[in-house]
């Protein structure tokens, strides 16, 4: 089975559509959305509808911190730009959309894999897995062999033997990595809708359960259109500008 992982779409319709079209050109048996469907971008309604459709057809969808804030209107822990975008998003979404987001699970287990937005150590604390020690803390908190998460907006892969500290690896785009052996792995997916690793292309990943290979992918998309809509919605301009540089 080939599973596509999409994380941190953040209301970016152009980026999501480009990734889905890319995924459509290969065999994908299941879609997993790792949270933060909305926030920052100008198309939250479209994204929620689209992901809802996928959910009806068997996709797994995980809750992200921006989804929770957009559903409840509670943006107290957000920085000013995120707050501005989330207040706007909250007003854009109707009650059904808010309810959909609010009822998303914090994490899902799937065979020997764990899907979570931030980390497994304390999913509701929204910790960022930005280094090996934080990855290790997450891996030690689960018995699952492979954790897939997002939240950081920069692709990374960590692995750990039971008696050793975790190690960071920077994955290369398109090279299938066998996540195997007597060790645990934690894969941070890059962001579909707001990459921050200096590469503006949308990021997603595919895992093949038969070969146990994880592939990180990048898809160029129509950034100009996404930017124009952010400007038209009068959202903070920095949310648009950063898309061009992927920062």
């Amino acid at each position, binding site marked *: 089975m080939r599973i596509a992982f999409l994380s941190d779409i953040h209301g970016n319709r152009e980026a999501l559509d480009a990734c889905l079209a890319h995924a459509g050109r290969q065999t994908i048996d299941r879609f997993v959305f790792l949270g933060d469907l909305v926030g920052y971008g100008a198309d939250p309604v479209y994204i929620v509808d689209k992901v809802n459709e996928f959910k009806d057809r068997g996709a797994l969808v995980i809750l992200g911190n921006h989804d929770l804030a957009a559903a409840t209107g509670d943006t107290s822990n957000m920085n000013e730009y995120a707050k501005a975008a989330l207040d706007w998003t909250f007003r854009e979404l109707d009650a059904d959309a808010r309810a959909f987001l609010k009822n998303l699970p914090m994490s899902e287990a799937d065979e020997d894999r764990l899907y979570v937005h931030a980390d497994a150590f304390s999913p509701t604390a929204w910790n960022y897995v930005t280094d090996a020690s934080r990855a290790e803390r997450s891996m030690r908190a689960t018995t699952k062999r492979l954790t897939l998460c997002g939240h950081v907006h920069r692709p990374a892969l960590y*692995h750990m033997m039971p008696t050793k500290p975790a190690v960071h690896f920077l994955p290369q785009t398109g090279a299938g990595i066998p996540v195997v052996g*007597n060790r645990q792995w934690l894969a941070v997916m890059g962001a579909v809708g707001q990459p921050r690793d200096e590469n503006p292309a949308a990021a997603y990943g595919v895992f093949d359960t038969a070969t146990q290979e994880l592939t990180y992918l990048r898809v160029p998309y129509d950034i100009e259109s996404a930017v124009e809509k952010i400007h038209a919605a009068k959202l903070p301009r920095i949310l648009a500008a950063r898309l061009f540089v992927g920062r």
Partner: protein
Amino acid sequence: MVREVLETGSTVDGYLIGEKLHTGGMATLWRVSKPGIDVPIVMKVPTILDGDDATIIVGFEMEMMILPRLSGLHVPKVYGIGDYSRRPYVVMEYIEGRALLDRLDEAPLLPEDVATLGARIATALADLHRQNVVHLDIKPSNIMMRASGDAAFIDFGLSRHLQLPDLLEAEFQVPMGTGPYISPEQLLRNRTDRRSDIFSLGVLLYHFATKVRPFGYPQSHHQLRKRLWRDPIPPRKLRPDIPPWLQEIILRCLEPDPKDRYPTAAHLLFDLQHPNQVQLTGRAHKVTRDPIFTAWKRWFRVQGLEAVPHQPEPGSIAAAPIVMAAVDLSEGMEALAEALRLDVGRMLSTLPDVRLACVNVLKLNRLAMNYSLDEEGRNIHVQKLVELKEWARPLRLEQERITFHVLEHAEPAQALLEFIRSNHVDQVLIGARGSSTFRRFLGSVSSQVVAEAECTVTVVRVPLPGALGLVRPVSASPLVESTAKGA
């Protein structure tokens, strides 16, 4: 992990276990068979000692990751791998042939034989490196010579795939390799440099040329580290009959700093295949080791270096391509030759480590094959070589970056294609003569090279006077152009 002991006659995942071929410290090899696979295959199983020796397990994990990703003549073909955590094994082609280890007793070999052997291993290395793998344990016992003469590497337990996580680096705080062969940078825990394999190949060639190991058989960490600053005794000191070109090649492979070695295995291969074109430097003629002061300076520099894991640097092969310019020296083709030189010059200016091979083909008459042996033939050959050098003179390229070759062949395109293949040429620049009806009918040399070469080919043309005019649409569909906004 399954701890059951394999034995002849038992079955694992459909493989019938045959005779035990080899038991080593790390792994055991069994001959196996399976319906549907009609070539000889072996199963490699890690030797699990008491208490799960991490070296063996992690090394085997790396091998199971790397081997199935490799292809070609120079590695064993993989037929199956077991489950990593439950029952690790690799089923692969049984390479019929001879381990290079068996040939060590024949040392010292004749210089030509050392070069031939080196060329075969360098060919295999170039192929491996192109697949993003650094072997990191090149030594005679890890090289099989196939019946065809091709070298094949076995045992990738210490190897590094530059696109995959390095499980070994994460696991161990000590350098990994084989004492006599390990490169200086491996001792500093850099496992990402393809030139490490060139160093180890240099050790192997030194040994086959002199019957002596350049760095002995080090028994301690200090003895191992000596190669970071102390150069070996020049081979010609041990065996004066070794020609300067071979000493130049071997000592360049053994330079302590990777930057001073051949940039790629293909560059080394080029020198091994063209001994008379090897650019001789001080290395070629030295009969003593570097002055103690030089060694001391190296020692001093090394003290400041920390042994830390390295990240691979992208594109180290691409920065040092071998470029071939196929030069047409016929009369009337001067404008084309000049256009070609212009393009070659542009390319050289962007790539500091490029190596340029200037090639001209002397077309042989099929009916007079011995033509090149007579006086007139030799004169023509020398004359073409002179013209080729004159063609390249305006490029002002340092001698060590350029070579000249006049090939004699009845089929010019075949001669070029053979040269491209045997020298691992990365890019060809070739001129195309005008497009006459005659040429279109018979096919030109350049079009055949374009069609059959496995590398990038750039075709250089001289625009015909008056050839530029209005573009006439060739079909009814209008040209659609779109322009990106902004950015």
